[in-house]
Every structure is written in structure tokens, then in C-alpha cells.
């Protein structure tokens, strides 16, 4: 379970933003809605332990993440949180397989090539495992970035505008994959978006004002 308690943040320019409390049950699927500039990315960074809020706490599975040391927070994130960005940023110098193995080793987990194979197969890109990111299409890259996010079976899967740079067909496919993968890996899913195409797929929404 994920809980957001009395979180508020100050921007560098002095602008203040507060977030209403939020309880996310295990395995639930949420939509995080808000116009550009409403603090969507800020909230996602706070949720994922990237940005320490001025006040309030974030508790994931009983761990108040900002009470952890920097090193332990990085490791906690690597093991428990999978993040999918708007654009699929993969390490260009590494093959698809190596990108996924890297995610395992950064989380201090042993290399598990069966898991890599399994995840890639479930996303339909098993044949690309020895290709480099530059050899893949945008849609394939987005699948790889989903694979990287779920490789360590995270409890929380967070996607930041995963569909906004994709056409209708790919957007629908990616959304389906996200929902599928969160189900397969029993992960809680939060999708932040202002993309209207996505709304219908979710029942739970957290709206920023």
C-alpha cells in the first residue's frame, strides 16, 4: 500500500504546492490527471523517491522512503518502483538484454536471464534482445522501457505520459501492455497523463488542481 501524507513542496522560484493525501491499495490501477504545470511530474518524483518534499511523508509498503539514506533510497527504488518515462530512455551503448541486466544489477539483484527472456517475450520483443536501442522503432523502444520497469517485479509501476508521443494505435497498445504487465507482476499502477485517450481505461483517478 502506498500512502501520501500531508506532502507539500517548494519550487526554486518560491512557488508552493500542496498535495492532497492519497491512499493507493495494492494492485489497484490509478490515473493521475492534471493539466501541464499542475505539478504532475513533481508529484511523480516525490512518489518515486527522486525529489524530497519540503514536508510530509511517502510510505510505500510500510517504509517511509525519505527516512532512508540516499544509497538505501536508490536501492529501494530499484527494487520496488518501476518507472516508465514519456520517452524511452535506454542506454545507447548497451544492447536490449544488457539494459535489462543492468536494471537487475543496479537493484543489487542477481542476473537472471530467464526473467529477461520472460519479460521480453510477454512484451513480444524477445527477438530484439541482442539489438542496440538505435536499431529499434519508437514503439519497440517503449516496450523495452516497460520491460525495464517491470524486470525486478516492482510493487509500484509508475508511468509518466507514456502515450503522449505515440499515435492512436501504439498508444492503445502501450496502455494495454501497462495494464497487462501490472497484472502479471501484481504491481500497483499509476499512470500520469493529460491524454484523453487513456481516461476510459481507469476507474480510479487522482486529480491535481
Amino acid at each position: 500500500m502506498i500512502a501520501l501524507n500531508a506532502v507539500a513542496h517548494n519550487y526554486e522560484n518560491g512557488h508552493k504546492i500542496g498535495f492532497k493525501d492519497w491512499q493507493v491499495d495494492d494492485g489497484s490501477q490509478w490515473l493521475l490527471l492534471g493539466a501541464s504545470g499542475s505539478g504532475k511530474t513533481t508529484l511523480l518524483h516525490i512518489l518515486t523517491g527522486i525529489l524530497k518534499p519540503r514536508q510530509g511523508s511517502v510510505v510505500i509498503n510500510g517504509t517511509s522512503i525519505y527516512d532512508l539514506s540516499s544509497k538505501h533510497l536508490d536501492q529501494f527504488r530499484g527494487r520496488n518502483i518501476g518507472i516508465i518515462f514519456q520517452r524511452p530512455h535506454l542506454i545507447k551503448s548497451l544492447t536490449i538484454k544488457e539494459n535489462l541486466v543492468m536494471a537487475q544489477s543496479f537493484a543489487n539483484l542477481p542476473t537472471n536471464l530467464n526473467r529477461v527472456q520472460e519479460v521480453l517475450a510477454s512484451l513480444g520483443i524477445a527477438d530484439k534482445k541482442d539489438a542496440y536501442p538505435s536499431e529499434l522503432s519508437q514503439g519497440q523502444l517503449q516496450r523495452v522501457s516497460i520491460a525495464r520497469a517491470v524486470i525486478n517485479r516492482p510493487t509500484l509501476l509508475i508511468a509518466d505520459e507514456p502515450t503522449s508521443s505515440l499515435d492512436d494505435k501504439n498508444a492503445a497498445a502501450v496502455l494495454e501492455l501497462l495494464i497487462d504487465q501490472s497484472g502479471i507482476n501484481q504491481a500497483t499502477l499509476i499512470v500520469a497523463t493529460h491524454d484523453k485517450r487513456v481516461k476510459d481505461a481507469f476507474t480510479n483517478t487522482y486529480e491535481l488542481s
Partner: protein
Amino acid sequence: MSPLKISWKSIWSKPLSSVLNIILIAFGTGILTILLLASKQISDKLENNSKDIDLVVGAKGSPLQLILSSIYYIDFPTGNIPLKEAQELARSPFVKKAVPLALGDNYNGVRIVGTDSNFVGIYKLKVKEGKFWQSDFETTIGSSIAKNQKLKIGDTFYGAHGLTGSTDIHKTHAYKVAGILTPQGNVTDNLILTNISSVWKMHDHEEKEEHDHDSKHKEKEAPEIQNKEITSLLIQYRSPMSVVMFPRMVNESTNMQAASPAQESTRLFSLIGIGVDTLQWFALLIMFIAAISVFVNLYNSLKERSYDLAIMRTLGASRAKLFLIVITEGIMLTLAGTIIGIALGHLALEFIGSNQESSQARLTGLILLGDEAYLFAAGLAIGIFASIIPAVQAYRSNISKILSKN
């Protein structure tokens, strides 16, 4: 997947700039390696060749020239000295051992040295095959000559007038190889040794052609030798006292000069040293430029890679790990450059050595010096120096800011 592998793959993903950095560092290290090897070998050789010789007496002129011609056999002799005066000096109480030298001829550029058995003693020579020269026109040759000129015991050859060149050949007498020396690791490996009267006879043959076949007579020609000349006299002192007295005596009371090999070698080396110093600074400058190039390369790639590094943080990599990844990349580049540079330096010096005309001072690249460890350390230091700032930046980067920019 270790940070090492990530750095390794990162280097390979931009081969052009990596190769440029490696070349720059290899070039600097290569020059330093050559300087290190060459100056060590030259100073070793200078020392080795004059080890047991305290003083050289020869005709007036440049003392350095006298040393070069009589100890290292590279320059022309200063002139000749009367044998009679030389013998008087040799009998002086200050002198323990005196070795007369008569230079003037060569065989294919190899100097033919007329001397006596004291030469064997002062250089501690041993024969590998055959024997030392005894009668006229018998020679004992250095090990390198036997190899390079393909001479063996019993072979004959003609000497040519002068110290190089083979235009004016003395056809009247042929030298015969009587023995081959064991390798000494000094200048004697490249000399042809014979007795003094052979050298004289080679040049006086017109006057004495009739006597030439009468070898029994020659042994007892001592009075005739009195007005002969030799090139120089190598001297070993009897006691340390001689250092003060003897050279002054020679320089003041005779019209010959005395030169100390140790002193002149030091002077020579300090002259070469200026060139070595200049090159050393040049090499250091190249290394410095290489360091800056590695720095710029890493710094620029860090800008491109800041997003990559931020992603790595979101995947669970700690700050320390990012620091390690960046610094490993810099160290790998410079270390590769250093190793290649050291190897190139050795190869280049071996190449230079094999193309050298003068066999007396041949350099080789096939030795490894302990000092090269310093080059290694320097390579490591440059790697750290060039990558520490980018690495610290990677450590400090604010990933939330980087990620929200996109």
C-alpha cells in the same frame, strides 16, 4: 552488470573520440618512454666503457674529442703523440697501467685498434674462440663484429685507411682473424684489436717492403719504434693521489693533454641532457593536452549522458556507482593510452637502434626499466585528474531536475 562493463561499453560506443584520446596519451607516453630508455642506455654505456680508465693522454685539442675517440671510438682522434713520450709517462710512479692505442684504419666502418696486452687487462677481455692477437696482422675481434660482418677464425680481410669509408684499401697486408671475444656489453664488442706494429706497418709499407717477409727481425725492432707515434694512451692510476698530480703534470710539462673520461662524459651528458630536457617538457605538454582532451571528452559526453545517468539512478544505482562509472571510463582511456604508448616507445627505439649507423652506441628497445612503473602511475594520475570533475558532477547531479527537463 558491473560498472566496469558499463564504462567499457560506453568507450566503445564512441570509438573516434576514444581513439583520439588514446592516441594523444600514447604519443606523450611513447616519447617519455623513448627518452627514459635512451638516456638510461646512453649513460650506462658512457659509464661501462670508461669504467676502469682514469685518464686518457693524447695530442692537444678538445678533451671531449680525445675521450670520444679513445674511449667511445666515435669521433676522430685529436692527432698523434710520440711513442717515446708516451712510454715515459707510462713509467711514471703515478701510473698503474698504461694502454697505448693506435687508430687510423677501419674495416667496413669498424675501427681497427692497435694496442698491447694491457688492453685485455684493463677491459677484462676473454676470448670465446681462438686466441688473442700475437704476431703482426693477427686480430681478435669483438663478438658483435663476428656476427655482423660474418667473420670467423682464420678469415682474412683488408683494412681501409681512415675511420670510415672503404675507398683507400691497404692491399699489401691482409689481417687474419685469430680470435673472437666473448660479448662484453661495451665498446669492445665492436672493435678489431691487433698489435701496434701491424698498424704502423700498414702505413709504412713503402719503406719497409723488403723486410716484411722477414718476420723474425720484426720482433726485435725496438729501437725503430722510438720515433714512432701512437694515437693516445689510456691510463689507470696507482693511487687516488694521482688524480690531483698526474693530469696537471701532463698538461703543464708535456705538449700532450690529459682528459678524464668521467669528467668529459659528465660534460657530454649534460650537453645531451639539454635536448633530453626539452623533449621531456614537450612530452609532458602532450600528456597535459591529452589529459585536457580526455576531460573535455568526458565532460561533453556527461552532458549528453546526464539523462542516462539519471535513469541509472532511478534504476537503483547509487551516487557512488555513477562516480565509479565515470571515473573508470577516464582511467580506462588513459591506461590504454599509457600501455600502448610504452609499447610504441619500445618498438620505436628498437627501430631507431636497428637503423643506427654507429654500432658503438646502438640503442635497443628490448629492455624493460623499473622506472617505467612511474609512467604507468602517471597515466593513472592523468586518468583520475581528467575524470574527477565529471565524476563528481555525476555524483552530485540532481536527477529530478534532469528528468523533468524532458
